Every structure is written in C-alpha cells, then in structure tokens.
C-alpha cells in the first residue's frame, strides 16, 4: 500500500473530495435551512437534478458558467415552488410530495435532455480555476484544495455567513421558532407560512446551484439521473449536523472524500474493484447513521404543517 501516501494520490483525493463534496455541501446547507424551519424537504434530489439540467443548458448555450449557476439555482427554486404551494400553503404530506418531486424531476429532465440532444452528450469546456495566491504553492494542499472554481470559495464563505445568520439575526430566530414551536412564532406576529416559504425557496436555490456545479464543473456534461443519490446524502448531512452549517461542511468533506476514492485509487494504481469503492459513500452513510443517528436532535415540528389556531 505504499501508493497511498504519494503526492498524486493525495492531490487526487483532496481535489476530488472538494469537487464531489461541493454539491453535497450546497444541497446540505439548503436542506438544513428547510429543516430548521420545520419542513422536511425530501425532494432535494429532484431539485438538484433540475438545477443540473437547467444549469447545464444555460451554460451550454451561453458559454458562461455564471449564467449556468444562476439558471441552476433558479431551476431548483422553481421546483421548490411545488413544495411551497402544496406542502406549506395547502398542508399536504411533505414526504409524498418530496418523493413525487424527485421521481418527476428524473423523468422530466431525461425527457427534455432527449428532446434537445437526442442521444449525444455534449461537453462543456473545463471550468475556470482560481488558484489562490500563495496558498496554491503549498505542496499537496495547494493543488488539492486551493485550485478550484470561484464558487467553491464562495460556498465556504456561505457556511460562515449562514452560521452568523442563524445566531445573530431575527431571521435566524424566526427559522428556529418555525421549526420548533410555530405557534410561538405566530403569536409573536411573524407569519409562519412566509418564514417557511423563504426557507424552502433558499433550499431550492442552493440545491439547484449544487446540481449545476455537479453537471458543469464536476462532470462537464449532463447525463440523466446524474445526481445518483447526492440529494439523499444531502438530507442525511442536514439531519446529522444539528443545525450547524460547519458540521454540514465537515460531513460533505467526508462523503466527498469517499466518493473521490475511486479515482484516487486508480491514480495510485491500486487495483480494487470499482464496485466496492463506489459502494463506499453509502457504507459511510450507514456507519455515520449508526454512530450519530441517535443524537440528531431534529426540530420538534419537523414535517408538520402549520395551520393557525389548529391543535
């Protein structure tokens, strides 16, 4: 196993972990906001997939990665509108609607992709990389962590911005109250439906953005069903993070690393069947759930629709 500590392996692992972890981080941060506000957003996978599709198409036609991100975010937000209208306003079951969104998004994006591109899979140019000055010269870490697309650094900044928002603003308090005791928020004169709607739309935007990153930067192409469980992992991350954005980032890095293991092992020339390695992230999900699942401490009103004056 001497190949494991070589520079190519470590760079490949770190670089891959960031690339694979980014969509999980964005989606997980989004899901966390919904869950804080008391909405269990099972349709996260569908929102990512729609974002991946709209983001890819926008970037493909305009040639701009930023327009791609914007379109991805808006695509995810539009999908989240379904949750807003059906679950938050009408009080329908969040799990049923969430599953419908994911299954529907899988079918819809496959169909649209087929109509537009038939069976060809056009590729985008490589995404622009911003190597951070000074830091990029650090051995291993420089190429692994500090040579990425600008969105990566913005996402890390978002982690801290969200931490601050949850802790130090009225919005943060409102979200927390909407998830734990919505009647209290209502009594304090804040509209619970508005609060939860805002959270769900943000979730849609972040999930869509994560999807667009996955398609445009991670893969460079759009393939139907390409999220392959990333949304589900995002939900798990949000549930285990106990409302702390930093913990979502730690989790995303862990899962990203296990996803990146496949490529890294090939780079290192170690011959382990790919099926085994590809199973790794899901084995990690199970292991993490067994170890930390008992302590997830979810908001008490999670998944419960709020109707004013109802018991």
């Amino acid at each position: 196993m001497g190949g494991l500590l070589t520079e190519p392996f470590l760079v490949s692992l770190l670089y891959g972990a960031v690339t694979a972890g980014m969509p999980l981080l964005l989606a997980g941060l989004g899901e966390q906001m919904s869950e804080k506000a008391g909405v269990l957003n099972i349709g996260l996978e569908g929102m990512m997939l729609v974002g991946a599709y709209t983001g890819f198409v926008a970037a493909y036609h305009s040639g701009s990665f930023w327009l791609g991100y914007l379109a991805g975010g808006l695509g995810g937000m539009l999908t989240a509108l379904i949750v807003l209208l059906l679950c938050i306003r009408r009080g329908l079951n969040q799990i049923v609607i969430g599953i419908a969104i994911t299954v529907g998004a899988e079918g819809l994006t496959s169909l649209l992709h087929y109509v537009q591109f038939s069976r060809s899979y056009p590729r985008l140019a490589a995404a622009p990389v911003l190597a951070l000055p000074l830091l990029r010269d650090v051995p291993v870490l420089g190429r692994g962590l500090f040579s990425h697309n600008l969105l990566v650094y913005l996402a890390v900044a978002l982690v801290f911005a969200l931490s601050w928002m949850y802790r130090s603003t009225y919005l943060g308090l409102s979200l927390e109250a909407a998830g734990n005791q919505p009647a209290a928020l209502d009594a304090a004169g804040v509209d619970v439906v508005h609060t939860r709607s805002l959270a769900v739309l943000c979730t849609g935007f972040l999930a869509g953005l994560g999807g667009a990153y996955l398609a445009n930067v991670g893969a460079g192409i759009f393939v139907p069903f390409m999220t392959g469980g990333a949304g589900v992992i995002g939900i798990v991350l949000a549930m285990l993070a106990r409302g702390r954005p930093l913990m979502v980032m730690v989790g995303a890095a862990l899962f990203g690393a296990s996803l990146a293991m496949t490529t890294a092992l090939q780079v290192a020339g170690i011959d382990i069947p790919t099926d085994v390695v590809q199973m790794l992230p899901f084995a990690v999900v199970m292991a993490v759930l067994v170890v930390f699942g008992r302590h997830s401490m979810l908001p008490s009103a999670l998944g419960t629709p709020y109707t004013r004056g109802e018991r």
Partner: protein
Amino acid sequence: MSIVAALSGITKRYPGVVALDAVSLEFHAGEVHVLLGENGAGKSTLVSVLAGMQQPDEGTVIIGGNPLRIASPRHSIQLGIGTVFQRPSLVLSLTVIENLMLGGSWLRRLARAAALRRFRELATLLGTHLDPDAPLAGLSLGEQQQVEIMRALWRDAKLLLLDEPTSMLTPQGVADLGRMMRNLRDRGVALILITHKLGEAYEFGDRISVLRLGKVAGGIDPEALVAMEESGRTATIIRLMFGLEAGEAATTAGGHAAELAILLGRKIHGPAVVDRSQPPVLRVREASTRAEFAETPLRKVSFELWSSEVLGIAGVDGNGQKHLAEMIAGQRAVHGGALELGGIDITQGGVPERRGRGVRYVTDDRLGEGTVGALPVATNLVLKEVGAPPWWHHGITDWAAIHAHARVLIERNDIRTPSALTPAGKLSGGNVQKVLLARELDAEARVAILNKPTHGLDLHNQRLALDRIGTAAARGVALLVISTDLDELIEISDRIGVMFGGRLAGIVDNDAGAIDRVRRLMTGAGAT
C-alpha cells in the same frame, strides 16, 4: 373608567357550530374582566378573535373608538393587545431573551442590549427574578408562564388576555400571577382573565361576564360584585352559565344547573370511613425508578394505601408524579424496592398482571395514552382488554358484546356521545374523561391511580369527575389521586402526600392545618 377595547356584535361560525353569537362586551382600563363559561361556550374563540388568530364572520372590534377587524397576530400586537394563550407559545430550544426577541424585522441584527433593557423594565414591573439567558426548557411551568406574560406585554400592551393561565400553576404560581395582575391593573392595563375556577374569579376579578353557547349570558359588574356574598355570586353565575334565567325549559341546560348545584353542595368524600386496623391494600416499600431524559425518577418512595381511602398526591408538576403513577400501574419497571397488593408481591408484574389483580390507572394524557382517538368509543371502553374474553374469543371480536357493554356504560356514566361508534377523539375533554373513568373504575377495581383527573375540565365536568372518585372510594376502592390543584385535594383526600424531587417528602392527615403543611412540603422544606 375609559374603555380600552370593545366587541360589537361579533359572530363566528364553524361548520355546524356558532362559536360566538353576536357577542358585545366592553373592556375597561384598570380592570380585571373575568370570563366564565363551560367548555365550548366560546371563551377561547373570543381570545382568538382579539389575538388576530381568527377573523369573525360578522361584527367589529372597537379599539380607541375606531371600529376595525384584526387581520393577523401582528396586527393585534400593533393595536396594543397582548395574549397569553392557553397552549404554551414559547420555543423551548431558545433562551428566555431569545423568545422575547422573536418577531423583529428579519434583515436586522439582534438588538440584544435593547431587549435586555426592556426585560429588566418588565421584570421590575412584574416582580420576577428570571435569568434572561436561561434556556426555556429548564424553567418551571410557572416561570415559563412569567415569560409568556412578558412576551404579551413586550410591546406595551394596553389590553392583556390571559386564557386559563392558572391551569398549570402551583398555589405559589397562582399567587404570583395574582400579584402581577394587580400591578398591571394599577397601571391602567385592561385585563381579560379566562378561568374555570370560581375562587380565582372572585379573588382577582373586578367584573365578571358569563358566556353560554356563544352568547353573553350576563354578568356581575364591579359595584354588584363588591356588594355580593360569595354564595350569592356563585348562585348568580351558575344560573347564568346554565341559562335558567332565559326561561328555557328545564331540559339539558336546566338539568346541568340542577346537577351542578347538587354537586357543589355535596360533600364528596366523608371523613374517617377508612379502617386502618385491616392490612393495607397496597404497600409500596422504598420503590425507585430509573432516570430518563428530562424526567424525575422516584427515589425510595414508601407508603401504604387502605381500602376506601383517597390518598392525594400534591407537588409541583415534574417532581416524580408521573413515574409514581406509571410504576404502580405496571408501565414502568421498579428498580429496587417492592410493591405488595393485598399481601402478594407484585413488584415484577407488568400491566396485564396488575390489571388482573385490580390495579387501574387513569392517565393525565387522555387523548395520547388513555384513548385511541380514531377508534370508536365502544372499542376505547375495552381498550385494556383487547384480545381477552368476554370481548374476544380465540382472536375473534364479539362486536355485539362490546357494543352492548358500551351502551350500558354510556348510559350509566352519562357519556355525551352521538353513538357508541363515534371516534373517541371527537368527544369533548369532559366526555373523554368520563370514558376513562368508566373504563378504569369498574366493579373489579381495587386500587386506582388517577393522574390529574380534572385537569382542563370545566366546572361541571370537574365536579362530576370528583364525584365519581368519591363514589368509588365509598365502594371500597383504594385511590391515589395526583393533582396540582391543592383545593381539590383538600376536598377529596383522607391524607395528602407531597412529592418533591422524586421523593415522597411527607404525608399529612387532611385536617384543619393540612394546607399549610402541604405548602411547606411542596417547597422542599421539612414537614415540621
């Protein structure tokens, strides 16, 4: 005195019910206005309308001379109305000050310093000593209530609504609340107090209005209230609550009033029929339970309970009462110590065995643990014998027998339900409790544990429940009655035990000085 707010012809309909029917009332500055009425009389709907939670179908609210509709809770707050809801409306995962800061503009940073200034102002006004940074989950119910009142007053309320604020409080908590209400009244705040307890209405109220079936049945204004004797007040209120004055035929309403008058006059439990020369029915020896998250376990609790005896258990909520009830019922394992029923050791037995020996349990969680809301009343009446004869034979349900049994119990216990097949969840709280009491206080009962048997019931149903308890005791059942309502325990108990920190701090005979000794024990002081 000046009128802070008034209701004019407020009507609110729900499918099948008129909750408020052309209600007109006035609320004066510097006055505590008590609203009385049975469950379903429309008191809570009235609060909802003023709090902006519900919009009336007809009529207007007049505030500062302007007729208007209160569109939302935010609007209500802006109009200077503060509300303490019947259900707790605080976020347990936040601290005191965070709860009070809820409701600020989203994009702004938390104005903690300003909030702390306001907190100290209100703390002085109310005379409370809370830590603003204490997590709410760690406060007692009385302290949480103080935070609720602070929240209601946060934006300078001119009208304060209190919807059954005392139902969860200890005697000390009720006294504190009374002091706060007087402070606010003296500062010109108009208060509306909703309660089921006549004693509180007389002690705190300046004016009393009675609601019946959504209408204002009448009231007693301040001058008359001062002039009247207590018995006169009570007679007037009962007449208004049940509508004899309106000249109605003496049907249900008249029957209710007559029944309540009898119940109020009756001594529930006669003294000294307990024969302590016999061996006790239940003997609990140094019984302990295992601690669980956020619950107080029992620590070496010992007592004896005789046939026909009512042993009241007083104490601030959360001092181990629930563990005590569940341990005797067999729902919670005994860790150390022993239980004996009629001389037989039952420490190890579970619910079926203890039930078979005559142990009965009426839980305080009527709709969660006591009944299955979606199942019909008939099934709920045999809920603890599912699968057993005579209702089940070899796994096959004998519906005819269950329904016949249910009809008998419904008749005998005056359970008001459309039919035996109505889901139990559709019944009112008082009737659900009648179902539970009918099921548990049956002919084979020897020991019955009742956890807060009157909690949340209106006056009429409360008296009915207490009457059932007295009847059961007269039949020879040994009863353990847990309650936070000390007056009630004084009325029905032979002896009163006090729980404190999971221990039985002491048991006192229910004689003249009992109430003071019980109060001392409740604070954790010794019995001497």
